[in-house]
């Protein structure tokens, strides 16, 4: 072995190539095992876990998405036009396609869903990027204009759940709060 000592500021001795030994070797082994566990957890949860972000999405023009959402609202409230009844909750029959529009600075419409039923929730934006953040469950998904993001959700317990926008979308961003009612 080279007799001169080498710090990290100096060129190492010519024979610097050595396999790890002792505690260093043990630690590398442990760390690698832990990394393997973490790697396997994700595919495991994909097949066995109930909460996944599949990224299911379809290309859509913002104007077309708004039209689909309006049609959905009218079909499920029985109102003649959105002006008559645009603000009261929409009660879609499960299981079905449900629409939610994000727009500077509100969510439309307010949805009333039934606990224990499965819905295909289409979320998209009419203008900028927004963040779908369902509270207090703290479930978060990205909402991007041009992308119809489909979340297949199953509400669990009754209550009123605020939807907070958590992607900056303009100076009024903080007041962009909607809700989902579960009964």
């Amino acid at each position, binding site marked *: *072995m080279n*007799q*001169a*000592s*080498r*710090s*990290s*500021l100096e*060129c*190492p001795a*010519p024979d*610097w*190539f*050595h396999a*790890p*030994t*002792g*505690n*260093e070797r043990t*630690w590398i082994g442990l760390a*690698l095992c832990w*990394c393997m566990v*973490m*790697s396997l*957890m*994700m*595919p495991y949860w*994909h097949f066995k876990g*109930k*909460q*996944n*972000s599949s*990224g*299911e999405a379809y290309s859509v023009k913002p104007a077309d998405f708004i039209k689909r959402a309006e049609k959905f609202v009218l079909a499920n409230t029985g109102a003649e036009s959105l002006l008559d009844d645009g603000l009261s909750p929409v009660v879609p029959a499960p299981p079905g396609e449900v629409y939610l529009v994000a727009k500077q600075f509100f969510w439309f419409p307010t949805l009333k869903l039934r606990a224990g039923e499965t819905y295909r929730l289409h979320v998209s934006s009419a203008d900028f*990027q927004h*963040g779908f953040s369902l509270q*207090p469950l*703290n*479930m*978060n*998904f*990205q*909402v*991007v*204009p*041009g*992308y*119809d*993001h*489909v979340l297949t*959700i*199953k509400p*669990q317990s009754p209550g009123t759940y605020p939807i*907070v926008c*958590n*992607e*900056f979308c303009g*100076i009024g961003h*903080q*007041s962009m709060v909607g809700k989902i009612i579960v009964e």
Partner: protein
Amino acid sequence: MSQENTGKRICPTTGLPICLDAQFFIKCNAVLAVVFLLVGGIGALLLALTRWQAVHLLPVDWFYRILTLHGLNMLIFWILFFEIAILYFAATSLLNCKLASTKAAWVSLLMMLIGALMVDVIIVLGKADVMMTSYLPLLAHPTFYFGIILVAVGALVGVLNYFATLYKAKKLKTYQGSVPLVVFGATAAAIIAVVTLLHGAIAIVPTFLHSMGWIAQPDPIWYRMTWWGLGHMSQQVNVCAMVSVWYLLGALTTGAKPLNETVCRGAFLLYIFFINLASAHHLLVDPAISVGWKIWNTSYAMYLAVLASMIHGFTVPASVEVAMRHKGYGRGLFGWLASAPWRNPGFSAFFLSLVIFGFGGGITGVTLGTQQINIIAHNTLRIPGHFHVTVVGGTTLAFMGLAYYVVPLMFQREYVFKKLARLQPYLFGIGITTMAMGMSFAGSMGVARRNWDIEATGSIYGPAAHLFLAAVGIGGVLAFTGLLLFILLTVGTVLCGRSFAGKPMESWGTPRELAREEGHAPLGAPAGFRGGAPAMAMAEAHPTQGTMVLAMIFLLSFAVYYFANWKALADAWPVR
């Protein structure tokens, strides 16, 4: 003086050769870095005092404006300027070579400076309220994008100058064998920086053209994926640079030597190979991106970049342990740690950075970046809670520790008010940790990041969330005080520190040798990183049990936090 002929001087403290050209640019870059740190820091204080709901300082438009300013000045300007300084130092002093090109260094410096000023001015004018990420379709004034492009290209020129200097040193044979570990780490950072800056160009150049009205709007998801190739990967540059600084400060403050060069270098290689698609961590709940892509790029099959950090997290303290035991501080498991030079701000900043980065930033980062767990974390305050303990408690604190050596050695002036300097890393470390923990816990309760007022439409969160936001405010004030102290001390030193030109710098305090060692002890070298027994022999003689115990505590904390998050996820509504 012979200085004039050779273009270099020998540092009387470390014995390292210092290229005078490089010294000039190291000074310029370091001073500018600190100026941008101050700009970002003032922003940080205002933001912390706004998110603290009881204080709620800034009006709404200025909150988002300052948030944009803070992000860019801290994450990009302060760090890039300082990293260029580190690269110039590593290539010239450690390889005993002159800087390849002063012209390129000027071009780099001026481009970065002009670009950064353009960005800051346009933000303050209120023409770029788009956050640092500037997600399309949000659009800023073209000046904003042009400024960022200038900074990126300027940094790229600096990095290429570094590579040119490496080439020159190799060709002129100014060193023998392999490059020192710190240079190896800096090179890894530089390689990642090139890939990072190219991603930045690919994302920002079309956005700039779009802002000029010359091309159609690029796709928002394409922009997110490409932009994060810049945004996240630049943080890997920081990690790489920070780890190199850990090795450097370990050597300067305790005489630590890498126990096994192969292991340390191997870990840096893992960074280069396995970090480049970390942008995936920002797209885990995005539409139109497949599960397979998300999972693969989250882990690159085996989390090998995480493995690299866990290896450095062991080898760095282990090298300190061995060095301290070798000096005779071997009592019990942690006698070496208790006797470490805690009053030396170079050491305390380095070791606090190591602990805060590992326990705070590492554990949270890997957990939040897990594909499914991201559902309960994305865009909440948990995210800034994570990166303030990596890039601030980790990188910035390590760079501050380095400044306590680089500034006196380059300007040849003693630090002013040394007693305050000895306190500074603790104040900053405690402040930023408090703030980040406040953010993390508030985020766990659903509080969003980048939000001026969480009660704009009525109460959504409970009193506990408000308590944690108060912690953000109080921690922010503490951290800012620490940061301001650092800046005042450093500026004071540059302007009116006592000159010690030609003599060694006064030592900050390094551990004395208790046991006589074989070999030749360095005489009167306060830094004391030279000489002594070979690292491998030292390591064989002195076991690293203390570090092993710390590492096991780390692994246990990691596992508890990781699985607690899976449990929290399982409580959410089923979703696909």
